[in-house]
């Protein structure tokens, strides 16, 4: 339903904007109806930039984003508002999403005034109650309160309820549980999985691999703005092929086994600057001559693509 076609975002940086920073380069992927896709990457990998471009919060440098076949990157005015009926986002920090001066349920009134001015107040209140119950909150406990009187998990569920009121088809969930405690984060995750059953598509942006694995059917691994590996979650997690993905999987702290090999610390930091070759070149233990050209994702098996010359070369032999 949502399709990204060679989307690129270039920021102008430096004192007079003389330098270019490729935050996202040539990213293409598709999300189907009722599918949860995880977008995984370290900080600075461009994962939030992609989320914001889908939500139209920042412009696209080149490429196209389309929803059910319609290009959405240049929407304005009423057309953009119609788009927001279908696509909404929830972000990392629930506390800074609210205006602390107003009561938290003001976000529902705004939706009412803006999108459904014809709906009778009583019917609307019933809808709000239902949406709150859908996200596992008791309306009596949470309505008429200020943001500081509610917990992070409650506020985060408020935002999801707000998105549900609009009857959306697509949700961008940008690190929505990283601020929550272990005992409540799993509830919000389960809620997302419930919503998925009703046909909602979700782009789940995270840096936490175990959460991604828990909830998503497909995963996309980003490194410095490029897709290095994508496909069915099981294949990415159980059989990672790209050296970067393999390094990530080896670094995840697990409860069932201890870390084994040492990660080379000198190559820990992602280098900056532009290159026309593979972006992982400087850190890659397998790098060879051909890696001076940028690899593109190649499908190595059904629904599993890798952008690495070593992997595709082995296959060609």
């Amino acid at each position, binding site marked *: 339903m949502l399709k990204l076609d060679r989307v690129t975002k270039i920021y102008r940086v430096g004192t007079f904007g003389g330098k270019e920073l490729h935050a996202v380069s040539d990213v293409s992927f598709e999300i189907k109806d009722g599918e949860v896709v995880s977008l995984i990457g370290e900080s600075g990998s461009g994962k939030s930039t992609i989320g914001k471009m889908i939500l139209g919060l920042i412009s696209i440098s080149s490429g196209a984003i389309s929803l059910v076949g319609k290009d959405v990157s240049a929407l304005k005015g009423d057309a953009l508002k119609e788009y927001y009926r279908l696509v909404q986002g929830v972000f990392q920090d629930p506390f800074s999403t609210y205006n602390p001066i107003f009561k938290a349920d003001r976000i529902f009134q705004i939706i009412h005034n803006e999108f459904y001015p014809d709906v009778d107040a009583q019917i609307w209140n019933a809808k709000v109650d239902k949406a709150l119950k859908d996200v596992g909150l008791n309306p009596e406990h949470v309505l008429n309160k200020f943001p500081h009187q509610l917990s992070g998990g409650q506020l985060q569920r408020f935002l999801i309820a707000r998105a549900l009121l609009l009857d959306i088809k697509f949700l961008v969930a940008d690190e929505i549980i990283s601020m929550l405690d272990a005992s409540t*984060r799993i509830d919000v995750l389960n809620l997302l999985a419930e919503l998925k059953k009703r046909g909602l598509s979700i782009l789940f942006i995270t840096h936490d691999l175990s959460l991604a694995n828990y909830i998503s059917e497909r995963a996309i691994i980003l490194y410095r703005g490029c897709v290095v590996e994508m496909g069915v979650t099981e294949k990415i997690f159980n059989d990672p092929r790209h050296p970067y993905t393999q390094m990530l999987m080896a670094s995840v702290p697990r409860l069932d086994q201890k870390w084994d090999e040492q990660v080379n610390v000198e190559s*820990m930091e992602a280098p900056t600057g532009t290159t026309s070759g593979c972006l992982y070149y400087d850190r890659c233990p397998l790098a060879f001559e051909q890696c001076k050209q940028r690899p593109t994702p190649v499908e190595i098996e059904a629904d599993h693509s890798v952008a690495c010359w070593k992997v595709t070369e082995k296959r060609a032999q």
Partner: protein
Amino acid sequence: MSLKVENLTIYYQTLRGDVRALENATFNIEGGEIMGLAGESGCGKTTLGHSLISLAPPMKYVGGRVTLGGVELPIWDTEKMNEFRFKDISIIPQYAMNAMNPIRKIGKMTEELLRARKVDFRALLPELKRRLDLVKLPHEVLDMYPIELSGGMKQRMVMVLSTLLDPILLIADEITSALDVASQKAVAEMLVEFRDEGCCKSAIVITHDISILYQIADSILIMYAGQLAEKASTETIIHSPRHPYTKMLISSLPEIGAKYSEKQLAGIPGKPPLLLDPPTGCRFRDRCPIAFEKCTEVPPFVEIEKNHFVACWKETGNDA
């Protein structure tokens, strides 16, 4: 025995009364032990860590004794504690990225820091360089400003600084939370290496991420709402916890390999009590599935097996 904490009680002073952030904490850390300190936000884990080194208002010392390497720490006296800070007890703060003076070169700042503790910088320089090698930082960082370093490098630099005088106890407060998985692993492993090299004799690692502790800690102390819930070796806490809170906390963690479609995990219903006016008795009572009448009294933190402490009436029995 390296650290001995007895009945430590710390409150926060607010306009509406005292917030009982830490009550009657009693535990020991052996020499060479890395103890993980875990719990939800607001459970008092940072309060416990900070009170050992810098007990400043609004924190209020209410009672208890802390002994480090056989010497009692005057934790209630900010001035007297100066003698112990950095030399005997040191901390890697939560926001290590911003811990260094931005307008001093790192080497110059280190020199000033040592002079304040009356330590000769020149005599210590070879050791400093050796430690930089240990965390794989080039020696040139000493001639650089903090802004020239990346977040992970700053974190490692602060680790070297904090442990420069070989403290008996190192407190590491959420040092891995702001890092990516790969740097997280590197920093965590360095901490273990520091302990092995004798750069610190023992450590308290404060984090909410239990899976990190499983990788590096020797023992784990779980806190809930200002009270100690359970302390045992890492293996015991992860694989055979006894306190109902620990059990629920461990089982709510999604592991690699766990999937919603196959096995649905459950959170812990309810939320922690407010510590301004906490309920009497066991504070986990309202969320606990096995609570009974006895739980209206505060359960003692007792040793049920060797080095396995639990504060739960169900585990200790009525006769305790």
